[in-house]
């Protein structure tokens, strides 16, 4: 009964989404206030029914109702309760339902906080969001219904993929989706502006906080995913350039470009059509990511061909959204041009360069992700493009970007006298160079050109971004005197610097070794000695494990004890590696059990990862900066 209720609620939500998608748009076109007023009510109604539907699926998981195919395939009686809940979005059907829930929540929020927007504009924004929602609801109901029942009810479920049984991965998809889906708001604002034919600086001011909010969730979502891959996939990498990861990174790059271009549109009324194009691209890439991940085309072009329904549906949806948006853009964008100018040395120029470099970066990821697919479809051969390619190619846009950030932040709008800029940035630049040349050798005993360049860039960004808050603090006896949006920007850029420092140091000074180890034996890595004290059996609710007790010492002083495990999950029989990690602010010490080589002897992978935490810390600080910028009073005051 409950699953049927959930299914029914989803159908009602579709009906309401249709009302929300059609009536307000017609109303705005005819200037009919009654029709326009449907927007908010329909959006709220849709939200209520999507929540009911989502709750029904969650209930089925909690009750272990294995008559529901989706539950039977992704849960099990012994699965711990928190994972029964996260299993709701652990696979295709449920993650679509989560997508719809989040989109609906965004729409209600837009409705709630858009009271001071012109009624016609708000109606259009909510209408476009409604149409997008219709697409996803249809997709779920027609091709991916999570409420389908089984004829024969199995006594127990097939269990959730053990990889997903982890707190990090339980919250990673919701956060990522909040970001992904959030770009649909910027997209809808862009479409609404083009429908209205009126794109002024106020429009950018309305759009900015929504875009930044989506971006900050996407940032946290990606960082959490990277962190999860680091400790759960077992082998200590933090980014694999896997197509699924790239699918989230491309919208992030575009979204970052959009945030910066919106700043120019708001302050100077420039870059209007470019901003629109970025808003369309950021969301289109989110959709493309969904297509890549969900159609199965990445697993195999042929898997896609044998069950093409889902793939074709998303492809058609993607086509309608992108082509529709671009046609509208082609018609309307020329009317929006602005004639205001700016000098070659000005904030506008730096933001333009930022945009070009970020779009180039996104294009590189796009190329590297889709090339193997094209090769396969064209029958040239089956290629794979590995991390070395991406790592090298990404340096091209990212290195100049890193140096430009530090200058761009301080450039004035319209025109910047170059002498002032040089005088102000002289000291940070000098410190950055000294630290970059000296630090690698002093701390890690080795140096190199690329490391030094990386450290110089990182320190340069950090110092330069703290310059303005520091000046303000000295003048006013408190950073509070700075506008929140400026403070947020400085903090976010500081996060970029931390991130760059982490990436540089960990890629240069990471030590990794595979060894065989017997109980009582030691492995020495980077001045730390890992001793395998004992091997013992351990048990979890749905797995058995062999656990090593490893003591880590430095100069015979105990640093910590870690418990790496080799787990076997009872239902799926998969073996899983749980690394033992001793985390510190300046380094992680990492040991993972490989295979049993003989009595009491195992192969192990031991790693020393300096500053790896800075990678995720940097990302969280970027997100924090975004949050501070949104809280600026400017965005709360009326139009």
């Amino acid at each position, binding site marked *: 009964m409950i699953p049927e209720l959930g299914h029914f609620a989803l159908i009602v939500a579709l009906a309401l989404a249709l009302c929300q998608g059609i009536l307000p748009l017609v109303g705005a076109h005819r200037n009919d206030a009654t029709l326009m007023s449907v927007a908010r009510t329909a959006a709220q109604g849709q939200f209520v029914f999507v929540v009911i539907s989502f709750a029904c699926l969650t209930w089925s998981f909690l009750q272990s109702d294995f008559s529901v195919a989706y539950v039977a395939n992704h849960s099990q009686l012994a699965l711990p309760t928190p994972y029964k809940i996260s299993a709701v979005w652990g696979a295709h059907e449920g993650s679509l339902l989560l997508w719809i829930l989040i989109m609906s929540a965004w729409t209600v929020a837009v409705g709630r906080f858009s009271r001071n927007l012109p009624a016609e504009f708000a109606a259009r924004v909510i209408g476009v969001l409604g149409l997008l929602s219709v697409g996803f609801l249809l997709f779920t109901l027609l091709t991916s219904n999570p409420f389908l029942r089984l004829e024969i009810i199995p006594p127990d479920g097939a269990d959730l*993929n053990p*990889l997903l049984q982890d707190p990090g991965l339980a919250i990673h998809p919701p956060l990522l989706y909040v970001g992904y889906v959030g770009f649909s708001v910027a997209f809808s604002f862009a479409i609404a502006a083009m429908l209205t034919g009126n794109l002024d600086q106020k429009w950018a001011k309305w759009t900015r906080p929504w875009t930044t909010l989506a971006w900050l969730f996407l940032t946290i979502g990606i960082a959490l995913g990277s962190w999860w891959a680091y400790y759960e996939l*077992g*082998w200590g990498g933090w980014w694999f350039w896997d197509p699924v990861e790239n699918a989230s990174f491309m919208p992030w790059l575009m979204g970052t470009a959009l945030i910066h271009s919106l700043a120019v549109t708001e302050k100077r009324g420039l870059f209007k059509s470019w901003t629109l194009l970025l808003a369309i691209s950021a969301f289109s890439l989110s959709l493309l990511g969904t297509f890549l991940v969900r159609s199965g085309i990445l*697993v*195999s*072009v*042929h*898997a896609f061909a044998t069950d093409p329904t889902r793939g074709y549906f998303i492809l058609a949806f993607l086509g309608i959204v992108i082509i529709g948006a671009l046609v509208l853009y082609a018609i309307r964008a020329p009317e929006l041009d602005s004639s205001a100018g700016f000098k*070659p040395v000005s904030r506008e*120029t730096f933001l*333009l*360069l930022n945009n*070009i*470099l970020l779009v*180039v970066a996104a*294009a*590189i990821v796009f*190329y590297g992700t889709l*090339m193997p697919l094209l090769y396969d479809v064209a029958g040239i*051969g*089956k*290629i*794979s*493009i*590995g991390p*070395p*390619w991406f790592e*090298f*190619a990404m340096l*091209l*846009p990212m290195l*100049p970007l890193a140096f430009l950030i530090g200058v761009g932040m301080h450039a004035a709008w319209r025109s910047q006298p170059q002498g002032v800029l040089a005088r102000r940035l002289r000291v940070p630049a000098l410190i950055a160079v000294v630290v970059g040349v000296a630090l690698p050798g002093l701390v890690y005993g080795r140096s190199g050109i690329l490391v030094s360049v990386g450290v110089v860039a990182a320190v340069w960004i950090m110092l330069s971004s703290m310059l303005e808050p520091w000046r303000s603090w000295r003048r006013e006896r408190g950073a509070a005197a700075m506008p929140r949006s400026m403070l947020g920007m400085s903090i976010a850029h500081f996060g970029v610097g931390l991130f760059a420092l982490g990436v540089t140091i960990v890629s240069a000074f990471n030590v990794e070794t*595979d*060894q*065989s180890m*017997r109980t009582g034996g030691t492995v020495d890595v980077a001045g730390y000695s890992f001793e395998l004290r004992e091997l013992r059996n351990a048990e979890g609710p749905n797995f058995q494990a062999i656990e090593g007790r490893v003591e880590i010492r430095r100069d015979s002083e105990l640093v910590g004890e870690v418990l790496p495990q080799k787990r076997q999950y009872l239902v*799926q*029989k*998969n*073996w*899983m*590696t749980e690394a033992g990690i001793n985390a510190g602010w300046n380094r992680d010490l990492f040991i*993972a059990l*490989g*295979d049993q*080589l*003989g009595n009491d*002897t195992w*192969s*192990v*992978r031991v790693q020393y990862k300096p500053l790896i935490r800075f990678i995720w810390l940097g990302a969280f600080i970027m997100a924090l900066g975004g949050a501070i910028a949104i809280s600026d009073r400017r965005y709360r005051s009326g139009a």
Partner: protein
Amino acid sequence: MLAVGLAAAGIALATVFTLTAMKDSMMFFIPVSDVVAGEYPADRNFRVGGLVVDGSVNREPGSLEMSFRVTDLRCELPVRYTGVLPDLFREGQGVVAHGRIGSEGDFEADTILAKHDENYMAPEVAESLAEHVSEQTAGLAEGSGECTSP
């Protein structure tokens, strides 16, 4: 505007240049039968894949050096590897290896991949196996399924 345009053009040019120059870091997947027949790139890394032959896994006691044979159900290729194996590496299971042919004609792998899901097999592996499954059942009598090496 001129400076901006030049910068943009420079970046674009550099990008195009790199993308073509780095063709080498793309790795082709070569079916085991082709490798055995000598049809593989000698001077760069490539990928092979198939099933780990039952009983072929050989370990030096107490060491990380090991060897095994991989088959596409027609030909078998000896593979050497030193290091920690992935969780799902097992005899009779699908596997993908990155590396190149060494001086002794063995495939010297620097990376071994086996996916985390029992039901999942790398698509290129599944495909190269599928080609020979029908041969084994039907064509073997006529001798068409023989492994040929130069």
